[in-house]
């Protein structure tokens, strides 16, 4: 499925370049090209994941290559949703490049056959794929929170300092990015909650443990707490604006630790 993934990569790169050009030059035509290539890339990507699933016989979210590819797919889907709901084209210039990088890494990783753990034991129950899928979607939502919060902070600073560059004029309004961050955080938190719960259930059904003090689990719990706090503060309105945005940015650092850091520290969650 390597060639299919390369086609996906090409489409995403075209989309990313046009999104950046559209952002810089403010051209609608460029944005349209970006959208069409993203749509094409996403369709191919979906096909690639399905093909992986059928050919390899397990849900395509287990090995590192699969995880990165799946994460990219999730981000593309999330971007599509945000675009549909808020029409914020500017987001594309920031979300499409990382998507392309993820697919690129997924495409150059040779094979996961040298991994000690085999996928076969995990796909027997539906709980495991649900757990991983939800967690990945939560990560994507938190990335959107991060982007929207950064845009908020950047513009808020510009408004306070009264110096407006070209980027300032092209970004969505404070209210819009604030709304995006709030709803993405709420959706992300819900997914993370259910994701962690299914993970626990799966683990319990497998060997009776629901918690193992694994680094990934600890980070995930911290992440969960932080976004819970963010939601509570936002809904009580005390932390609207800058402070909530800072939390949205800081929260993503924790997400990164959960995603990559745990791998470095070893532990039970060795995959994904």
């Amino acid at each position, binding site marked *: 499925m390597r060639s299919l993934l390369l086609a996906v990569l090409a489409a995403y790169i075209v989309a990313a370049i046009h999104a950046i050009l559209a952002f810089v030059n*403010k*051209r*609608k035509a460029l944005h349209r090209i970006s959208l069409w290539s993203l749509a094409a890339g996403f369709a191919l990507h979906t096909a690639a994941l399905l093909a992986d699933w059928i050919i390899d016989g397990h849900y395509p979210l287990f090995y590192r290559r699969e995880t990165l590819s799946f994460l990219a797919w999730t981000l593309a889907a999330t971007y599509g949703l945000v675009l549909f709901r808020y029409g914020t084209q500017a987001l594309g210039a920031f979300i499409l490049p990382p998507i392309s990088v993820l697919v690129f890494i997924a495409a150059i990783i040779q094979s996961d056959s040298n991994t000690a753990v085999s996928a076969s034991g995990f796909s027997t129950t539906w709980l495991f794929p649900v757990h991983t899928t939800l967690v990945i979607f939560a990560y994507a939502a938190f990335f959107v929170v991060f982007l929207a919060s950064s845009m908020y902070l950047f*513009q808020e600073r510009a*408004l*306070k300092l*009264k110096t*407006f560059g*070209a980027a*300032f*004029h092209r970004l*969505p*309004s*404070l*209210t*819009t990015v604030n709304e995006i961050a709030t709803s993405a955080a709420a959706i992300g938190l819900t997914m993370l909650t259910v994701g962690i719960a299914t993970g626990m259930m799966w683990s319990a059904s497998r060997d009776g443990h629901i918690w193992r003090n694994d680094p990934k689990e600890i980070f995930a719990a911290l992440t969960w707490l932080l976004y819970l706090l963010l939601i509570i503060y936002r809904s009580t*309105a*005390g*932390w*609207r*604006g*800058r*402070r909530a945005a800072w939390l949205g940015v800081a929260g993503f650092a924790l997400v990164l630790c959960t995603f990559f850091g745990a791998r470095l520290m070893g532990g039970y969650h060795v995959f994904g």
Partner: protein
Amino acid sequence: MSKNPNEPMSIVLVGVNHKTAPVEMRELLAFSEEACTEGLRLLVDGEVVREGLIVSTCNRVEVVAATTTEKMQEGTERISDFLSVSRNLPRDFFYDHVYNRTEEDAVRHLFRVTSSLDSMVVGEPQVLGQVRRAYSLALEAGTAGRVLNRLVHHAFHVAKRVRTETGIAANAVSISYMAVELGKKIFNTLKGHSVLLIGGGEMAELSARHLINAGAEGVLIANRTVETAERLAAEFNGTAISLNDLPDYLAEADIVICSTGAEDYVVTEALARKALEERRNRPAFFIDISVPRNVDPAIGELPNMFVFDIDDLEAVVTSNIREREKEAERAELIVESEIMQFQQALRALDFGPTIGALRQKLQDIARLELARQKNRLGQLTPEQERAVEALLLSTVNKISHPVLSQMRRSYEASDIETIQAWRDIFGLEE
């Protein structure tokens, strides 16, 4: 209205604008709409000036005309005479202030005017509407024909390209409009957002009006004088409140415009803190147009509160104007490329004469062939000879007629692409 449609046509333009003539002169040269219609009929004589259009705004008077290429110079003279006669002014009066442009330069000028590159405030949107209006007046007067139709439509096309492909009209360049732009940046839409106007004065009222036009709802007016408050409340369909009640109402406003003659802060930090709490941290936007300032700048340090004083607004306006000027350079490139395209289209419109020549050429071929084969036909009576010639010519005409009339139709419809195709088919490049 053209006497003979088969002559090559050119564009000429005579005009004054804010750069070449003072307002006193522009006033005297300006045309009202009625004067415009009347003037156009006077200007277009069908001989020298075939088509005409007058764009008259407070910043410019431009007379655009289509003449035959041959009579271009006479055309510009005629327009100057026309200005003198119809405005009842001696030519010497405006002679030094008027510019004459012909052909490419005239096209460039009209394109730049329509795209708002020649405006006092580059990128202002009104001029496009003014050219549109001038064009419809010319259509009503029947003085816009094939050449000007194409020219004006091309000018609209250029204006649209400039507007969408450059940021020439992107950012506000007036202080009153800045309020709308910043309001949108903070609130995304002004719909459902309320305005509190403290004090009054031209700029503050204009800002409030812009905000309301952009969708702001619910206007509160606080003014020291009851009459002024009530007048403004009536004008903006808002509610007048007393200045003393300001602490009670401040939290209700999303956008506060402050412009009073007070020597001290009217909106103090303590007041703003209280409002922020009551607003549950919802953002608020303060525009302080007063000198000395009426809104404590320390409020700008509070979260979710944004304060802009007159200097801040002016600085942003200045930088936006610079930004527009940069964008204008890109717009000039678009104009240049479009001039070439228009000139090509205009030359394609000179296709009329070619159609006539083509018919002649086909008939000449028939006659030539007859002359060549005459000896072989033996001795013919004059009647027979005429019959043979008629036979040949009518065959040629019958065959070529549908083709030629189709060509003429494409010519009349100014269908440039098809005309180009005809040219290629018959090798009519010269």
